[in-house]
């Protein structure tokens, strides 16, 4: 099952289970349309009708605000934005209302809403390319999740829908699946087993994608796959890489990372977002505060360079961390220390 299918199944199951759950967004299930920019909500209106699969005007402020208002008064909205970049249009509603209502009301109001946003560079230039996770991890009151496999996508989205708080789901455009007419040219196909029976994945529990002993790489979304590929290459050189996918950035599974560092003593963070003040910087700082003495080498961040995303594929490939760059940086880190 692809990630797009897994997300759709999570929505479907939760909408069947709880009539308060509904979806809203632009082009999410117009007859003859795409079912959201990346097909996640395709066909759901057949079962649930257009009242619960609500196509909206192109009004991002309204979409986010309406999700907040509906969530505060007894509904569970799943809002959809076509490209993560459009979250900036709705920033006030997410940062000032969704994130703060529970707190400002002294805990008397809840905002159980989900905001889904596709991220990642895909040859679309600077305004349909950003990885925005870092911005949102900075805002107290939000939860941030980044599923990178079909299994996680379903289990984490179901948990998000049942959470009593606003959750932002960052989905990677190149991971939805490589089939269908909306698939991206260079998409990976992270097709995975998704069990029939119901399961939920709790937030704040990372997963070790590959065990290793020489260095720990922490990566999310597409960078998990690039790090895994880098790890295979490095293995042939006798470098054993452990790859941790934290799966959720807020809350973050520091315990898993620290446990891994006790074994590897080296930390690399690979993120697709631009480097300066990204979530990787926060992880590096937190590890420096809490686990510095387990480290035998400087913490290394591999991230996109601090420029807007260029269009030319040749430049985009240069800006975004590549497998080669990860391999190279690991080699350097290990060599420096030796």
């Amino acid at each position, binding site marked *: 099952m692809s990630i797009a299918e897994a997300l759709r199944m999570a929505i479907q199951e939760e909408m069947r289970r709880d009539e308060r759950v509904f979806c809203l967004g632009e082009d999410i299930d117009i007859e003859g349309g795409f079912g959201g920019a990346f097909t996640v909500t395709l066909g759901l209106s057949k079962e649930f009708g257009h009242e619960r699969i609500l196509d909206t005007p192109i009004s991002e402020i*309204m979409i986010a*605000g309406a999700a*907040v208002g509906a*969530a505060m*008064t007894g509904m569970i909205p799943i809002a959809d934005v076509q490209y993560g970049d459009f979250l900036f249009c709705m920033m006030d509603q997410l940062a000032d209302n969704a994130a703060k209502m*529970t707190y*400002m*009301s002294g805990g008397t109001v809840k905002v159980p809403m989900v905001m889904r946003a596709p991220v990642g560079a895909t040859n679309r230039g600077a305004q349909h390319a950003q990885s925005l996770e870092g911005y949102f991890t900075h805002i107290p009151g939000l939860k941030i999740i980044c599923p990178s496999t079909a299994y996680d996508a379903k289990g984490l989205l179901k948990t998000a829908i049942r959470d009593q708080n606003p959750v932002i789901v960052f989905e990677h455009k190149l991971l939805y699946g490589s089939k269908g007419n909306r698939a991206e040219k260079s998409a990976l196909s992270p097709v995975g087993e998704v069990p029939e029976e119901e399961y939920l994945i709790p937030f704040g529990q990372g997963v070790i994608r590959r065990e290793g002993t020489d260095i720990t790489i922490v990566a999310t979304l597409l960078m998990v796959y690039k790090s895994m590929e880098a790890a295979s290459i490095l293995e042939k050189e006798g470098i054993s890489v452990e790859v941790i996918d934290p799966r959720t950035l807020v809350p973050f599974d520091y315990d898993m990372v620290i446990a891994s560092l006790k074994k590897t003593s080296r930390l690399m963070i690979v993120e697709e977002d631009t480097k300066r003040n990204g979530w990787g910087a926060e992880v590096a700082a937190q590890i420096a505060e809490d686990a510095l003495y387990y480290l035998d080498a400087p913490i290394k961040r591999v991230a996109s360079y601090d420029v807007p995303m260029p269009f030319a594929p040749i430049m985009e490939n240069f800006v975004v961390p590549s497998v080669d760059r990860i391999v190279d940086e690991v080699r350097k880190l290990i060599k420096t220390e030796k």
Partner: protein
Amino acid sequence: MKIDKARVLKIYEQLFLLRSYEEKIYFLFLEGVMPGTIHQSQGQEASAVGMLFDLRKEDYITSTHRPAGHCLAKGVSLESMMCEMFAKANGCCKGKGGAMHTGDISVGALPAIAITAGGMPVAVGVGLSCKMRKTDNVVVCFFGDGASNEGAFHESMNAAAIWNLPIIFACENNLYGASTHINMVTKIKDLAERGAAYGIPSEIVDGNDVFAVNEAATRAIERARKGLGPTFLELKTYRRCGHSRNDSCGYRDKTEEKEWYDKDPVKRCKTFIIENGLGTVEDIVEIEKKVTQAIENAVAFAKSSPDPKPEDALENLYF
């Protein structure tokens, strides 16, 4: 409108409560015993009371940085409002909200949203929720003339119109966005035109006449309850106070001020009652005494209420 004596006196009591509450807050603020800042609503009481007098507890309001009148008229308790102003642990937001975020969801008053027009998209969601849950509850969405130049205003009005949501857009046009006169920032004379532009039935209302506001509200609420969609009411009004603390309104024309002060909504209601024999001077005095006492009691209660613990700041981040 049916003129029933008890009802009219109750309306006056509400107006007087809102006015006296704000006057008391102003006094306490000047005294320096109250932290924070204030955005007051003296002069705009008819809008809050007229709009909300006939709402049910299950109906909702969204409010603004100037929320006191709306909250009190919706039924947020005087004590919990006063405690919040004094930053006490038993305030309506446990001291975490403050003057610009008062509210109480249990009586349908969402915590006020202090970003201009920021509550309007939220009202759309509340309206959607009322409709999707198949209730006949309605939402009164308050905002000022300043909000009408925000993108959120336009996105919200459009969505409410296409989805036929049970929302009453209550635009309190008090002529000023902080110190900027509406003529400097808006080409049209009547903001009701903007409601009409989205296909929403829109009315211009004398916002300083509580009965006129109440009649317009009654029509709008009925439409909303019947599922006939939103209404836009432009309530022409004026604030008697500055935009916020320490604002002596140097930007306002004194003739304009005088003209509006003469149309004071509290005084007008009182005159109406006495001239039409709906109540005596004694009735009025009794109401005023009762309200004044209630406010004094609330102040005493708030002053003697416990402060939050500093580390309470770390609670309530998540529900």
